[in-house]
């Protein structure tokens, strides 16, 4: 007889807490570090209650020093721990950029596998929550450009917990992007205990044979809304949640594009050098002759993420996505 898996209904941020909790209880090697993650439970409450439960030695409030604690986490990772560091907002990761680019992502290669960095860097990202400037960056491509680091980005509670556990168990460094805008905007059923969502695998959210719409993180609900609006016009979109930005789920993307022949990519990051460009290269390499129209990108613009007084102009909207879908349909 099969026992039903117990689930609970959680928001995305609660699912992250649950994932961290699961791994902290499973292994003493797992340790959390970051600014305000202890007593305060993180500015988004992602680590709420964990210091109380696991103590100040395992859930550590660090000094205000990203280069310091990311660098220290690299040292802990090479020496037997599985640190999970929190960057308060992705826009504040830049002081640690040197550590990530010159050490975390290449230590394995430099030492032919003698030293490895099984570390997770958690970072809330994205605009649309009326946060002050620089709190809203989605500069994920800075981290997919340097090989050696995996980059994941869940869009819902189930994936968030499963990917978090997979990231902590991953033998390589993982940048774990958390869409702030989706932290509390919906709830989902999340299994109790341990399960993983495989890094490197995306997910098909809707079946459709007219257009493939690819999104991740906070752009998934935007893509879904546009796809729904398109239905009334008789256009069936196949919406893919990429979930991992490095390495990209090639099979999922190519299979879908071969079926639909049309692609719209939606991302919040700037257009130039964005993951959308990588997806288009991939499609050109693997499915060029299947295409009925050039792929369209709906992205943040090539401007710094503006202050929140302008963010509605910057962020992709269902309207912009719909316009792109119509464009590839009419081509």
């Amino acid at each position, binding site marked *: 007889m099969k026992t039903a898996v117990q689930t609970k209904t959680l928001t995305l941020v609660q699912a992250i807490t649950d994932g961290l909790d699961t791994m902290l209880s499973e292994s003493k090697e797992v340790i959390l570090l970051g*600014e*305000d993650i*202890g*007593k*305060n*439970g993180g*500015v988004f409450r992602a680590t709420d209650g964990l210091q109380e439960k696991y103590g100040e030695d395992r859930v550590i*409030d660090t*000094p*205000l*020093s*990203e*280069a*310091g604690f990311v660098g220290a986490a690299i040292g802990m990772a090479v020496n037997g721990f599985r640190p999970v560091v929190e960057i308060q907002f992705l*826009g*504040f990761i*830049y*002081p640690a950029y040197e550590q990530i680019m010159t050490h975390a992502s290449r230590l394995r290669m430099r030492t032919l596998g003698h030293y490895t960095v099984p570390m997770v860097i958690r970072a809330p990202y994205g605009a649309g929550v*009326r*946060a*002050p*400037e*620089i*709190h809203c960056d989605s500069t994920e491509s800075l981290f997919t450009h340097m090989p050696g680091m995996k980059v994941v980005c869940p869009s819902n509670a189930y994936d968030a917990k499963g990917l978090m556990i997979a990231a902590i168990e991953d033998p390589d460094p993982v940048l774990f992007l958390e869409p702030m805008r989706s932290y509390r905007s919906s709830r989902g059923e999340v299994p109790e205990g341990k399960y993983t969502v495989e890094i490197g695998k995306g997910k098909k959210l809707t079946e459709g044979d007219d257009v493939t719409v690819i999104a991740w993180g906070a752009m998934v609900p935007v893509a879904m809304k546009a796809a729904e609006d398109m239905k009334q016009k008789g256009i069936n979109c196949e919406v893919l949640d990429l979930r991992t930005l490095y390495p990209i789920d090639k099979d999922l993307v190519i299979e879908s594009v071969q079926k639909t022949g049309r692609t719209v990519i939606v991302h919040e990051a700037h*257009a*130039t050098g964005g993951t959308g460009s990588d997806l288009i290269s991939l499609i050109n390499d693997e499915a060029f002759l299947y295409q009925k129209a050039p792929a369209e990108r709906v992205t943040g*613009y*090539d*401007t*710094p993420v*503006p*202050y*929140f*007084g*302008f*963010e*509605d*102009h*910057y962020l992709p909207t269902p*309207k*912009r996505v719909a*316009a792109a879908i119509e464009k590839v349909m009419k081509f």
Partner: protein
Amino acid sequence: MEKDFPIFQVMDQNGNIVSEEHKNLVTEERVKKFYSEMVRIRTLDRKSISLQRQGRIGTYAPFEGQEASQVGTALALEGEDWMFPTYRDHGAAMVFGHSLRNILLFWNGRNEGCVPPDGKKIFPPAIPIATQIPHAAGAAFAEKQKGTKNAAICYFGDGATSEGDFHEGLNFASVFKSPVVYFCQNNQFAISVPISKQMNSATIAQKALAYDIPGVRIDGNDIFAVFAETEKALKRARNGEGPTLIEAMTWRYGSHTTADDASKYRDQGESALKRLETDPLLRLERWLKNEGLYDEAWVKEIEEQAAAEIDAAVQEMEKFPKADPAVIFDYVFEKPTWTIEKQKREYLELIGGEV
């Protein structure tokens, strides 16, 4: 180490002068000027919190409790000096002559908020911690290279001293003898992290030793101590003697920003007590009372003036034209690149002039 860096005071919390040397500084005229400027910025601070609660501005960083540090430093500056504030130093910026409307626009998510009035050298508030510290070293060094007598002041919190930029900036300024005053408002918390967990050093002032520059620790709620030490450090800077690090011991009564809740990480009773004991405005009130100069009608008058001034600025902020999307495209480069031009054209076409 702590005893090597005693806390300098001119006026104690009961309003008594404790530094003979600075007795001349404390005149009725000065006390009233300091007091009324502190009332102005406290009124702005309280109004901003209420605007945030009503959804009329975004997340806001309050500074109540730190008025003496901000007013005392700003009044010590000369008009041609540079100011490098953080997100919590708009009180200082206001006293130094920043536009009130623009300060409010900043908190309303508008770039106009970063634009100082003509002729005023005020940098946009630093959002990433400690990043302004090297900028100030550079801007001040440039003044020196140009042969002026202008200096810079750079504000930051206790948490900022943990970042690499703090050390890199101080080192640069020290090596190149930049005319800059590094002013740390040690409000004893970086969001929720108390100073005891931020550093193992007894003081921040002692960090100056590493760079062989003067480091002083002062009562940051004593506006005379703030004014006197800032003036002294500015004088050194103008004389070509290089940077100074000032650690001003102070306190923020409220939360880190309107988005957090201080009761989660500290005993609110402690803040309430500070309000009664060490408040920078109360201290001047006590001096005025001790001297028999306290005038209730005058206090009421400056409070009303401040409220009227701020209400007018709020109106200006709210009447300010709606965000024009062209702004985000037009200022990335002097001349927009083709990518930006294309994106702008397509977007404006799509929205047809409206959002």
